[in-house]
């Protein structure tokens, strides 16, 4: 049985390789807007299936050293904590505010033209397959909440789960900080 209670929404700032998890607790709309807004250059094309498979096949290699994830790792990102019910996609009401802050940020003119990738992670407690599925369901749930309740255009949001395949450097796989979700700025949204 997995005990994935917390997902951290990792919106890592710019190209910083060491996410500031101590600062993850207190997040403001302002921080999300400025942290995610620092996109320079064109963003890569995204294929969710390729990213998911690359994560599964990564064999413990760091995200930044993989061909496709390496490009993602260089994009503007940040950290917000979201608490889920144990082994469930249900977000605890205590974390509604964090979702609202993200929504406020995505509705700001500084960010409203950008696409975002929601990446669900898990700790290594429980089976690989279960963790992969749960992390994906949670990433999708966040996308659904943002695009329905908070009216963020669904065409701006992508979601993928990568389970326990990318533990944060220097932590044990079962560390709580590995239960996180990353939000990555994918670049300017252009209508198809």
């Amino acid at each position: 049985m997995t005990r994935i209670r917390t997902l951290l929404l990792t919106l890592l700032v710019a190209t910083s390789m060491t996410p500031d998890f101590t600062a993850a607790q207190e997040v403001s709309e302002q921080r999300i807007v400025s942290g995610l807004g620092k996109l320079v250059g064109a963003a890569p094309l995204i294929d969710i299936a390729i990213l998911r498979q690359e994560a599964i096949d990564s064999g413990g290699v760091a995200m930044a050293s993989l061909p496709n994830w390496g490009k993602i790792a260089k994009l503007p990102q940040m950290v917000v904590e979201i608490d889920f019910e144990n082994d469930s996609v249900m977000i605890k009401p205590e974390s509604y505010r964090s979702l609202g802050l993200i929504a406020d940020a995505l509705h700001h003119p500084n960010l409203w033209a950008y696409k975002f990738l929601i990446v669900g992670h898990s700790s290594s407690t429980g089976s690989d397959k279960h963790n992969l599925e749960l992390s994906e369901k949670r990433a999708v749930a966040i996308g659904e909440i943002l695009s329905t309740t908070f009216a963020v255009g669904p065409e701006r949001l992508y979601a993928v789960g990568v389970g326990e395949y990318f533990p944060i450097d220097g932590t044990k796989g079962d560390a709580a900080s590995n239960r996180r979700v990353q939000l990555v700025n994918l670049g300017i949204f252009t209508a198809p």
Partner: protein
Amino acid sequence: MKTRRTIAATLLIGLALTGATRAETLSYADAVTNLAQDCGADIKKFCHGLNLGNGRIADCLQKNAAKISPVCVGTITTVLTSISQREQAQAAYVGVCKHDIAQLCSSVKGDGYRLACLIKAERRVGKACNQAITDAGWR
């Protein structure tokens, strides 16, 4: 419950038409913080396993309206209303501020920088546009 939301929406459209310069709107964050505070216990009790997405929490709370706390019943309506108000205020911004942008910030490229330009030029920006920026929660 669907009807209730439709009524709320109808009311909102009315509000938007009659008063583009209404008082403050709530941020999404503050709106759902109120929901979590006033309805958190009821959500955990009656809506276990459900999420905010696709109106599931609002529907669940409304379905259980007889059992949930009166404070929560009131809050659901307020939250739904304030979320749509914020949405409409933000949608109105581009149209309402078009003239001010053309006059004061035409050389500025990018929506974010244009907004920053309007905020800086607050004293010279028209009342309606200033109000739209405030209602959108961008000040």
